[in-house]
């Protein structure tokens, strides 16, 4: 669901060693290196644009960061960060990596220095995320890499990441636990007389207190549609509709005020999607299962807000749950499924964090 992006992920920024020990990342690198050797390349470069940390780099570094990570086919990866190096001391505490340096303004040249350390100079390289770079940065990168052969690895990397690892599932469950607690706090504040806006802010405070790295919140602040916090407001609109997105350690989950609903069209729509979320199913099948449970006005609203998508290191990943979509659900993927009915007698928001299995979806329990 589209929400307001804040200027900075300013919540808890601290590696959770119990959740993500060193060997988890060594294993991720080892498995990827085997694929790279099969592909016959010397290594992989994964890029995240300046000021836009992303899940691709975060998957290998252990923390969402902007920069470029270079993974050779053996040995440890190297992370090149944007910025002047002032932040390196802190960034080192967030990752498992020992090889980190500031690329700064000379990022492409620094990358080439790393590539040149290998015996063959990395004549053939797999790449992820080049397409996301701004045009000038992409031009500089291509110029610096010169005649090296670049193999687009985006799709294979996405497939590699689609099936969530057990510790990734734990991280999403932790994020879900924080999101559920935030929603409960918002509802409790509303029950005590808080305005919808105050309830939303209370939910944010609890999420941040409990360890959210980043937060998204929407509520029915003015009546019939969902909105983010923009300014204090005293209006009360019952029932409170509250949606919370929480990032813990880079992993996202969402919860909503109607998650405890067991009746009503929105709950039925989400239950139908969960049941249909079996490995190999079409994303469009889930959408159609949901729409069959919704009366026409609710159908329109739920489609407008979105029925869900994949979720993990990105708040929104493929596949998108849309009518007609032929994308298939990979086993082990995490989906965030939802139905939003913003007005009327059945007004509610229901969500379900779901793992795709061969027998259908399994709802995640909060941790």
């Amino acid at each position, binding site marked *: 669901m*589209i*929400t*307001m*992006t*804040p*200027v*900075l*992920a*300013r*919540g*808890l*920024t*601290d590696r959770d060693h119990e959740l993500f020990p060193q060997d988890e990342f060594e294993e991720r690198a080892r498995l990827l290196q085997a694929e790279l050797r099969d592909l016959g390349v010397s290594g992989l470069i994964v890029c995240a644009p300046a*000021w*836009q940390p992303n899940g691709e780099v975060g998957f290998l570094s252990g923390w969402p960061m902007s920069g470029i990570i270079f993974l050779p086919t053996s040995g440890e990866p190297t992370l090149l960060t944007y*910025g*002047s*190096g*002032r*932040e*390196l*001391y*802190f960034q080192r*505490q967030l990752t498992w990596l020992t090889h980190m340096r*500031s690329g*700064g303004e000379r990022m492409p040249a620094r990358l080439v220095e790393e590539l040149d350390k290998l015996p063959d100079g990395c004549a053939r390289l797999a790449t992820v995320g080049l*397409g*996301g*770079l*701004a*045009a000038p940065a*992409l031009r500089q990168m291509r110029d610096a890499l010169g005649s090296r052969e670049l193999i687009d690895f985006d799709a294979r990397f996405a497939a590699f990441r689609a099936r969530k690892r057990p510790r990734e599932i734990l991280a999403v469950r932790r994020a879900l636990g924080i999101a559920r607690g935030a929603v409960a706090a918002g509802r409790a504040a509303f029950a005590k007389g808080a305005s919808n806006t105050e309830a939303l*802010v*209370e939910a*944010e*405070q609890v999420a*941040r*207190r409990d*360890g959210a790295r980043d937060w998204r919140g929407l509520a029915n602040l*003015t009546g*019939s*549609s*969902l*909105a*983010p*916090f*923009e*300014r*204090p407001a005293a209006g009360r609109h019952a029932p409170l509709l509250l949606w919370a997105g929480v990032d813990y350690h880079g992993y996202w989950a969402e919860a909503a005020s109607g998650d405890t609903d067991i009746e009503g069209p929105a709950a039925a729509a989400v239950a139908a999607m969960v049941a249909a979320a079996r490995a190999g199913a079409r994303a469009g099948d889930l959408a159609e299962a949901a729409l069959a449970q919704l009366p026409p006005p609710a159908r329109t*609203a739920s489609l*407008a*807000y979105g029925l869900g998508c994949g979720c993990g290191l990105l708040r929104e990943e493929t596949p998108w749950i849309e009518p007609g979509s032929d994308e298939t659900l990979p086993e082990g993927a995490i989906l965030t499924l939802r139905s939003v009915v913003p007005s009327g007698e059945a007004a509610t928001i229901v969500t379900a964090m779901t793992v795709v299995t061969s027998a259908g979806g399994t709802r995640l329990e909060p941790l």
Partner: protein
Amino acid sequence: MTDMSPLPETLRTTSYKARIDRVRAAMRRDGHTLLIAYGTGQHSFVGMNPAWYLSGFRQMGPHVAVAVPLDDEPFLLMTPAWDIDRARARSTVTDIEAADPAAFFPALADSLHRRRLDLNHVAVAGGRMPRAIAEGWADALGAAPSSGEALISDLARIRDPWSLACTRRAVAIAEKGCDWLEQNARAGAREHQLVAALDVYMRGLGAEDNFLLMSSSQHNRSVHQPTRRLIAEGDVLLSEITPAVEGEYIQICRSAVFGKPTALQLEKFALLDEALRAGMRTATPGTPVSAVVEAINAPIAAAGYGEYTVPPYMRTRGHSMALGSMDPEISMFSGHTLEEGMVFVMHPNQYLPDTGYLMCGEPVLITPSGAEPLTSTMGVLGSYI
């Protein structure tokens, strides 16, 4: 008692109307028939948002465009469609259309053609645009547009009455945040929980967003996002408190010791305070920002820390955070020159080997006599007991 009542709506509407008028005058001067101000949903305080600057609408979706024809009424195209009620409530551009994010460019092309607008001399201002957008204008418009970045930035870098009102309100919120910290920050708290409570306190005062960095150590290397760290007696808390009101961010940089500051800490903070005041005296209209940097660095270098006046021991000596312009950047290399009416944070924040990183910075307004602090009280090395 600080006045936190809503800012006057009439000031907002008149200022936004004046922005459109000034943009049209600049378009006429530069030979443009249409300006498209684009905004991404990736809000940044180091990147301008031309669409927000011209419409007053803070977008959620990935694309918003404000089209300003030279002679016709402007219109706003926003995403996603379900957010249109909020756009209608806040946008000062009243002709509003909505599109699904995936259909942004076709919808824009359709809107432009329906209005029979002259697309022969189009300029686009978009700040930091995603590559797909930066490279998509030519197809959508039928020809590659000119850059309108400077057109917007040159108008916006001198604050208009609405921008200044929002800025002053944000300063008031930040100062109240500092007061809150002094009253509530105690050893034994966790960094991230202290930040959560402070952040929400400032939201309650009207800060829609906050570039809030806060961290502690007995010897800080820099400021960063909060960790689980339990704050202990003797830790130095660094705070970059940066609330936004209507898209106008301001920043106050503060340092405080849990307990009584040492003589050495007081001495080194005084050195940075001296540097800040030297920079403020130098920052008169017409002065190149490089001269301000030199004025800030001079006392620090004279105290024997010349090698610490460059990265990685510091980042920059100051910068704008305005909605419409990132000028000025207070660095040796930006090439900017100060003008009366500019607002930015000036901060000789940096690492010193004796005490660690210290923060000392104020939001300032450029006046004929130099940089005036917008804060009611300039920062001191605080003490939380």
